[in-house]
């Protein structure tokens, strides 16, 4: 190169340097990509309560060669196979993830991690391949320690086959695979393909495909220690309550009829929690009731009694939502530090105080929809609905339960009763056994005031659905389930209507009432739409009408019904519930010809709602629908926004903070090859050191440098 062009050379030097730097950067990524394949993950995480921890923890990154087991026999073979000398990631269908199997796998010292497949394209993981008798992973009486009968010597066990898996703790990672959307299907395909390669190689001819898991949970000991160190967040979210009586006040002396359900449920993998039978059927029932009652030709806010809808979040965690709601309406806390703006309070934190208009002493009836989907194994016969009442004060609810049964029986000849062919409704104690109330939100009301007439409607009489708290509680029967919910909604809406009208006996209705109650009918299509939207695809027309979800470039599909953590990770289902209820309970001016104000969402700035109105589904509505914070009543917030345990006997569930969670696929060489690699490295180091030592000595001697 000519010396007369230094500038050019300089430029080329810089360019070369820059390119080298860029190259090594991209190459570092290339090398990473060459070794690892990051896979989307659905983890089991650690939760804490007053006495300890549950869920999964792995202190160091666990790795394991993928090993596929499709049956109990496969697991046995894995355990007894002496040719397997590594740590393994055992892939299994979710129903094989049982305590005995986990113990068995742990005893081999070969277990690195477990992957449970909930749904997959392989026939082994198909919904039809699921065993009908897979037991619930919840306890034998879910949340009963926080329920109405927690003080009793013996409690009726509503979930006798419950394995309690959800309450165990595991010191290795457990992840799920589920082909529920495009991203998770990619993960599923990547992992299953890698497992097939391993199987093809007989799990012995290396290199084999392995997975590395990161699942380090910070939280330890119990909620008390964890909150002190600020390593966990209370489980919670937003409950929703609504009433057509926009003018309800604490002192109006008007009785209240409560229609209630839980919105959330739990399962081992929170991203997968749907709880179709566990809670969604009840939630859909209450939404359908609100829609049915909104058709009443007698305005609901003009009735002798108020109707109050409550949809609770956090119910799967010791009835956190309902207990906090009842606690807040009864204690009527004074505001110590007002909010900077708006009607709320900064401490104790309340966004507004509308809930203080609800008077617990005025509640005259509680109607709750529990598991009403009749999603069960074929052996249990045709679907039926059962009305449960409290066993301690059963007399209080006698009239109410009679009315519920009457509304569902179709036996009486008035127009209010259900048509023949509908799902039959009967008192749960019609077999002469008083079991009391099953685990339900109603218990929270009764704990505060025991003599409220209360009926909990479920599709079981003696035993909760085995689907309770299962990750596989994700499907329903398009006919039976919808009919069952339809009947539950019909019975509850008519009973609530009669109660609100103050009619004790349907046979004694006036002609106007007879006609008006006929206007209440449950929309079967709405039930189907709600089930589809809330369990399959949130970007459906119904939700879109309220929330314009499809405008989002990443339109949501299946969304979990796990409550999430308070004020940090909240779920969208309460937002939909709020909008739907606000619309259904909106203040209506009867015989008014004024058109509704439309466009508040589609034409922002041009159409503005009045200050007391909300923009719901592009329309300005006046509505008394509110969110209510839900978190364990054993917890309390202090002035600096931290939490502490106020009463350890009440629910205090928290979720641990964690480092990045993730999985990645990579090739692993045989343990022998790994040892050889290490030995080669050591030998090379020693040889290198020797050569350097000798070379120095030689150079010093030759050049005579001292």
């Amino acid at each position, binding site marked *: 190169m000519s010396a007369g062009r230094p500038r050019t050379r300089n430029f080329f030097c810089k360019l070369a340097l820059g390119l080298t730097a860029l190259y090594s950067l991209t190459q570092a990524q290339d090398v990473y990509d060459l070794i690892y394949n990051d896979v989307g993950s659905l983890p089991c995480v650690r939760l804490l309560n007053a006495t300890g921890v549950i869920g999964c*923890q792995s*202190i160091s990154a666990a790795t394991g060669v993928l090993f596929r087991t499709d049956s109990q026999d496969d697991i046995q073979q894995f355990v007894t196979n002496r040719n397997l000398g590594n740590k393994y990631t055992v892939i299994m269908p979710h129903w094989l993830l049982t305590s005995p199997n986990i113990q068995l796998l742990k005893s081999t010292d070969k277990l690195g991690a477990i992957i449970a497949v909930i749904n997959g394209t392989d026939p082994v993981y198909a919904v039809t391949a699921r065993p009908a008798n897979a037991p619930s992973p919840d306890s034998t009486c879910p949340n009963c320690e926080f329920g109405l009968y927690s003080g009793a010597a013996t409690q009726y066990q509503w979930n006798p086959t419950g394995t309690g898996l959800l309450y165990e703790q595991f010191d290795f990672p457990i992840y799920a695979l589920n082909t529920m959307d495009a991203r998770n299907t990619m993960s599923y395909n990547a992992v299953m393909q890698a497992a097939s390669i391993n199987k093809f190689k007989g799990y012995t001819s290396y290199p084999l495909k392995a997975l590395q898991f990161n699942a380090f949970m*910070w939280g*330890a000991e119990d909620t008390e*220690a964890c909150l*002190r*160190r600020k*390593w966990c967040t209370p489980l919670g979210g937003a409950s929703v309550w609504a009433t057509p009586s926009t003018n309800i006040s604490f002192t109006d002396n008007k009785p209240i009829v409560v229609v209630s359900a839980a919105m959330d449920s739990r399962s081992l993998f929170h991203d997968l929690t749907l709880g179709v039978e566990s809670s969604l059927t009840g939630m859909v029932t209450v939404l359908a009731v609100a829609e049915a009652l909104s058709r009443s030709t007698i305005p609901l806010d003009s009735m002798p009694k108020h109707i109050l809808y409550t949809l609770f979040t956090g119910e799967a965690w010791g009835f956190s939502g309902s207990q906090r709601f009842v606690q807040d309406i009864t204690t009527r806390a004074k505001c110590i530090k007002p909010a900077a703006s708006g009607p709320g309070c900064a401490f104790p934190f309340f966004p507004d105080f509308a809930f203080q208009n609800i008077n617990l002493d005025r509640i005259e009836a509680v109607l709750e929809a529990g598991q009403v989907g009749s999603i069960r194994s074929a052996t249990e016969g045709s679907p039926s609905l059962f009305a449960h009442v409290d066993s301690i004060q059963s007399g209080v609810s006698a009239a109410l339960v009679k009315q519920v049964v009457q509304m569902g029986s179709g036996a009486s000849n008035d127009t209010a009763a259900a048509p023949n062919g509908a799902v039959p409704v009967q008192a749960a104690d019609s077999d002469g056994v008083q079991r009391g109330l099953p685990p339900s939100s109603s218990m929270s009301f009764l704990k505060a005031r025991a003599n409220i007439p209360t009926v909990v409607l479920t599709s079981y009489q003696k035993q909760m659905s085995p689907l309770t708290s299962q990750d596989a509680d994700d499907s329903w029967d398009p006919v039976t389930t919808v009919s069952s919910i339809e009947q539950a909604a019909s019975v509850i809406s008519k009973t609530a209507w009669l109660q609100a009208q103050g009619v004790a006996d349907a046979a004694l209705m006036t002609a106007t009432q007879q006609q008006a109650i006929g206007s209440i009918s449950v929309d079967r299509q709405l039930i189907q739409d709600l089930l589809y939207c809330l369990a399959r695809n949130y970007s459906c027309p119904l939700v879109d009408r309220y929330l314009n979800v499809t405008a989002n470039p990443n339109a949501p599909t299946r969304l979990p019904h796990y409550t999430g953590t308070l004020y940090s990770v909240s779920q969208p289902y309460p937002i939909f519930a709020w909008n739907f209820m606000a619309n259904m309970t909106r203040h209506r001016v009867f015989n008014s010809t004024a058109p509704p104000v439309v466009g508040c969402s589609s034409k922002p700035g041009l159409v503005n709602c009045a200050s007391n109105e909300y923009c719901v589904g592009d329309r300005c509505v006046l509505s008394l629908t509110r969110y209510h914070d839900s978190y364990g009543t054993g917890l309390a917030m202090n002035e600096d926004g931290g939490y502490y345990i106020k009463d350890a006997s009440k629910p205090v569930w928290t979720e641990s903070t964690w480092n990045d969670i993730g999985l990645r696929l990579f090739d692993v060489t045989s343990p022998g090859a790994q040892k050889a690699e290490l030995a080669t490295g050591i030998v090379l180091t020693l040889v290198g050191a020797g050569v350097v030592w000798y070379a120095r000595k030689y150079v010093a001697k030759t050049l005579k440098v001292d």
Partner: protein
Amino acid sequence: MAKPIEKMGPEEILTISKKLFYGGFGLLPFLWVYNVLYIWPVRNRSDLSPQVRHYVLMSGIMSTLLFVVFSVWFGIFVNQRLSWGATGDALTVVLVKGV
């Protein structure tokens, strides 16, 4: 380079030994250990004042005593830290996550 202890006079050794012993009470217990180790090679020199021997012995006793006390405390702390609740956390410099 500092003068090796073998070349020091008895007065100098006495001063150092005394300073090290009293210095140890200033929350510097390692000075006691150091005192013993430093004087050890010259402990049998005949020209040394008997006071040196006294300081070294006392330093040895103090360091041994403290070693026992610290070891016992460490054992108790490690095993009981979690059961002391908020106090335990306050006494811990770096809280260990996950356990």
